[in-house]
Structures are given as structure tokens and as C-alpha cells.
């Protein structure tokens, strides 16, 4: 995560921008977006190269890695031919790229279904949890960071700094376990593992795959509340990590801003300290903050791998770890690919948003 700090910090606008005229803005934006698209395509190709490399080159026997060592001879041979292992590596790679682009990620040996289908089924659960997590992180982290910066060096500031560092030092899976022991077993404030209590399972027909929304669509408040008690803890744990990161970045951005001349200008005008903080210092960091929030959101996908294992949350993280333990290579690579792609996607979207939203970058 530390590298993200640096890149996001670089994105912080402090000085003036060059001058540009209205007529050229649109074209510049289009060109910028096109540039980003090309970059995305290359990065994605690189991502495929990595998963290909992991799947075909690293294992001593890639076929074994896919079918597992209990597979009968015939299956083994069939997969070998299907993977095209008799052809040169570069041909295999293009074959692989073609397959992925057509949505074919191979079969999972543990579920017996196409990996792509599995992933589409489990992804909404992760999305739902990560989204609530990032909402918690933004809602608490931004005000904390702004407050800490406005009281630099105070006790509250020190506490917020340490909380920020705890975000880098606490294992997510451990925090989840401790949370379960405390809030579920002892205090019974929240629901246990899983997305919902067992006797509600399967009642709601998936529409969006997001249980909270689906239950509302079905008008079933009881299930909605039950799902809420289940998602609260894992989302709060994820929220803690994004809170820590966002608070830390917000604080650092705000400290930069508060030292700017235009903040002094606002004070000269007699603007109240609250408005100086939010209108003059905070507004300019909104755009770089979007980048930070995007990074954090993408980071929660990573965090969800550990959290889902702890909470038996039927999302992509759980799918990935199960596949890992079953040496189900197609599933592992498929999940890696999807997480990687979403990660890249979110990063690039925040890049583009940056260009579009910042008056100086237009």
C-alpha cells in the first residue's frame, strides 16, 4: 500500500496549472481517456501474461496443476491436449488470451462448473461487502483525517496517526476472528458467519446478487435486517482498513493544503475556520482523494480474500482460498484474473475521473 501513498501524494495539486482554453478542453480529455484505454489494454495483457506464466510455466506439470493428482489418465490426456501443451509457448499464450477474451476461464475441478460461471455467481457477495466497507471507510476516514490535520500535533492527531498505522499492522483475518468472538459470540450484536441465517437461505431469488438490494426489491424487510446483521461485522472490519488508509492520506493532503497561500488568503478575508478547512483546504483535495478512495476500494478486494475465509462469506475471496487449498489451478487463475482486472479497472477509472474533475487538469 505504501506505493499507493506515494503515487496518490504526487497527484496532489499544489501549484498552479498551465493555462488552456475552453475549446481545447474536450479534445484533451478525449485524448487523455484514449491514452488511458491503451494503457489499460497493455496492463491487462500483462496481467494475462502473469497468470499464464503462473499457470503454465511455474508448475513442473501444468496439467497436474489443473486436474489434480487424483485424475484418471484419460482426463489427464484430454486436458493436456486441450491446453495445447504440445505447441510452442507463444502459441499457447495467444490461445489463452483468446480463451479469456471469449470468457472461457476453463473448468474448475472442485465445483465441476466453468470458472467464469462460478465467478459471476460469487462476485456480487464480495462487491456488496466491499462497497459497505468503503462507505464506512470514507464516512469516518475523511472527517478523521481533516480533523487530525486541523489539530496537527494534538493528542487526537497522534491517536489518529496510530490508528492509521494500525491499518498497516493488524491482520485482517485476526481482526475478523476477534470481532466474531466479541460481537457475535459474546455480545450477540451481530449475526454470525455467512450472508444470512440458514433458515432464510434461498428464499430470495437473486436479481442483482446483492442480498441487501434483492431483499428490498422482494419487499422482505425481515431478510433485509437479517442480512444486514450478517454483513455488518465483515464490512466494518474492511471499513477499518480503508478508514485507516483514507484518514492517513486525507491528513497528509490537508497538511499540504493548510500551508498553501490561498488558505491564508481565505483567513485574511475573515472566513471562519470551519469554512477555511472545508471550503478552501478540503475542496482542492477532493479530486486526489477520489484516487485514494479508488485505491482503497480496490484494496478491499484484496482484504476480502482473508475476511471471507473467516466469515465463510461466499464471495470471490472464499472461492479463491478454497481453490488454492484444492490445488484447483483454473479457479485460482480465474479469480486472480478477475481481482486483478477489477483492481486495474478501478485504478484507471479514478485516473480518468481525476482528469475530468480537476479544473486544472482539463
Amino acid at each position, binding site marked *: 500500500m505504501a506505493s499507493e501513498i506515494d503515487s496518490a501524494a504526487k497527484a496532489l*495539486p499544489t*501549484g*498552479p*496549472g*498551465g*493555462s*488552456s482554453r475552453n475549446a481545447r478542453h474536450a479534445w484533451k480529455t478525449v485524448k487523455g481517456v484514449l491514452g488511458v484505454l491503451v494503457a489499460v489494454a497493455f496492463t491487462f495483457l500483462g496481467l494475462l501474461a502473469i497468470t499464464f506464466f503462473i499457470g503454465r510455466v511455474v508448475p513442473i506439470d501444468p496439467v497436474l496443476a489443473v486436474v489434480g493428482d487424483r485424475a484418471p489418465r484419460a482426463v489427464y490426456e484430454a486436458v493436456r491436449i486441450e491446453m495445447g501443451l504440445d505447441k510452442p509457448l507463444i502459441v499457447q499464450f495467444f490461445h489463452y488470451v483468446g480463451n479469456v477474451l471469449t470468457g472461457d476461464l476453463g473448468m474448475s475441478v472442485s465445483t465441476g462448473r466453468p470458472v467464469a460461471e462460478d465467478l459471476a455467481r460469487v462476485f456480487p457477495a464480495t462487491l456488496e461487502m466491499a462497497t459497505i466497507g468503503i462507505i464506512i471507510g470514507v464516512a469516518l476516514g475523511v472527517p478523521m483525517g481533516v480533523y487530525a490535520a486541523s489539530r496537527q500535533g494534538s493528542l487526537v492527531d497522534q491517536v489518529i496517526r496510530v490508528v492509521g498505522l494500525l491499518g498497516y499492522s493488524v491482520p485482517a483475518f485476526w481482526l475478523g476472528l476477534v470481532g466474531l468472538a466479541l460481537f457475535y459470540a459474546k455480545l450477540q450484536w451481530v449475526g454470525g458467519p455467512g450472508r444470512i441465517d440458514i433458515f432464510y437461505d434461498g428464499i430470495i431469488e437473486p436479481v442483482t446478487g446483492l442480498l441487501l438490494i434483492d431483499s428490498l426489491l422482494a419487499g422482505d424487510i425481515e431478510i433485509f435486517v437479517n442480512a444486514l446483521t450478517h454483513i455488518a461485522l465483515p464490512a466494518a472490519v474492511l471499513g477499518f482498513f480503508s478508514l485507516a488508509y483514507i484518514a492517513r492520506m486525507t491528513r497528509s493532503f490537508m497538511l499540504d493544503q493548510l500551508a*498553501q*497561500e*490561498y488558505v*491564508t*488568503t*481565505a*483567513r*485574511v*478575508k*475573515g*472566513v*471562519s*475556520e470551519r469554512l477555511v478547512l472545508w*471550503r*478552501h483546504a478540503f*475542496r*482542492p483535495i*477532493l479530486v486526489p482523494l477520489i484516487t485514494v478512495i479508488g485505491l482503497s476500494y480496490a484494496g478491499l478486494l484484496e482484504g476480502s480474500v482473508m475476511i471471507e475465509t473467516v466469515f465463510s462469506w461466499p464471495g470471490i475471496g472464499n472461492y479463491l482460498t478454497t481453490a488454492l487449498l484444492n490445488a484447483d489451478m483454473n479457479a485460482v487463475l480465474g479469480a486472480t484474473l478477475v481481482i486483478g482486472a477489477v483492481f486495474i479497472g478501478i485504478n484507471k477509472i479514478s485516473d480518468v475521473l481525476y482528469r475530468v474533475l*480537476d*479544473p*486544472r487538469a482539463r
Partner: protein
Amino acid sequence: MNALLEIRNLKVTFPTARGPVDVVKGLSLTLGRERLGIVGESGSGKSMTGRSILRLIRSPGQVTADEMTFNGTDLLSLSEKQMRSIRGARISMVMQDPKFSLNPVMTIGDQIAEALLTHQKLGRSDIRNRTLAMLEAVRINDPERVLGLYPHEVSGGMGQRVMIAMMLIPEPDLLIADEPTSALDVSVQAQVLEIIDDLVKRKGMGLILISHDLDLVSAYCDRILVMRSGEVVEECDAGELKNAKHPYTRGLLASIPRIDESRDELPVLERTGAST
């Protein structure tokens, strides 16, 4: 005597690794509705003086004074809230470089309007009219268009005129201009100073013009303070500058080249000889 501003023994102190350092050491001044120039080389404490009048020295800096009264109010005893009602409305300050002192993500119109709205409640069209009138007063030809621009979309000279408009629109009694032209192209410097001078005279405000340029200050001010490492070393009327006694001032004067003189070598400011 109805002095606008009365300062006695102003000190600005910063703690450093080597202990507290006074960057302004016991400055005193009395200002009526006149134009006072403060000159001195860079780092001599001019900006610190200007900002302490507005009580805008950021911690860890400390401001102390035996007296600092504005129109009879003791500025040092005011609460932060009362001080805010003075800032902008009664005492205002034009900052050095519009590239850094204007908020990059607010339109010029919003920034000017804010100066007004902070101190009085006004209707939308009132604000607009007054903002447009103010922009015209600082000689901006197409104020309608400029209102909607962001600071990076205007030139430095235009930016500084916007700054002046923003600082004068609440009609303060005292304007502090801290090196208002040193970040600008030479070609627009005179124009910006003319605008300040004109508005200050028309509204009968007090002006403190801070600059490192003795020539400029003597052209636009009635009275001049010369500062050097936090202290006032000379105080005189602008017209009597050539009779200045202090060697430091004489040094400053001598380093200004004149068209009507010829000399082989530009004199260098003699620092050691000028020490007090």
C-alpha cells in the same frame, strides 16, 4: 489624535533548534489615513509585521506587543471570532503572488463574492452587481467573463487585480499590500500599483505598502519605514528620503541606478558597515 493603527514594541518570535528567535524586534509605528511604505531586504521581517497586524502568524510563531490598537480597539485582546470580523472587513491584505494566493478550484466570481458574504448578508443580484462593479474598478474590461474563470485561466497581472478587487470589496479602512507586484511582469507592475493607489485615495483608506524596492515605495507612499533584520532603522517622509541618515538606507538608495547619472560600477550594499 485619531490614528488608524498604533503599534508599540511589536515582537514576532519563532522557536528554533537554537532557541527562540525574534524575527521582528520591537517595531513601533503610528498610521493615520495615509500611505506608509515598509522597505527592507528579503527576510527582514516585513511580511511578519504585516501578518501580525491581522494576527495571522501561524503557530509556532508568537506575536507580542505593548500596544496594537486599530481605530481604538485593542487587536491583541480580541477573541478569534471578533478578530475574524475585523479581517477582510476592516483590515485587508493583498498577497504577493496571485498564482499561489488565489484558490485554484474556486471561480474568481465565487472568491470575490465570498469576501463580501463573509461580512454581510446580500441578495444574489446585489452580490453580482457589486462584484462586477468592483472588477470594473480594478480595470477589468469584461468582468462578466472573468467571473466564471478559474485563477489558472488568467494572467498574473489580471490575477493580482482580482486579488485587489477581492480585498477591497468589503471596503476596509486599512489595506496591507505585501509585495503586490514583485511576482508580476514589469510591464504590468505600474498599472497594478496605480490601481491600488487610486482606490486607496478615493476611499480614503490607510495603506501599508510592503516592498523590497525603495524606489517604488517612495513613489507611492507618504512615509517610509526602513527595516533590517526585524528592526526599524529609519523612518522618514518619502520626500526626505535623500536626506536619510542611516548608512543602511543610504546603501539601499545608492544601489538604485539613475538614468541621469553615470558611474563605472554599481555600488554594492555594504552590510558590515551598516550594522547598527
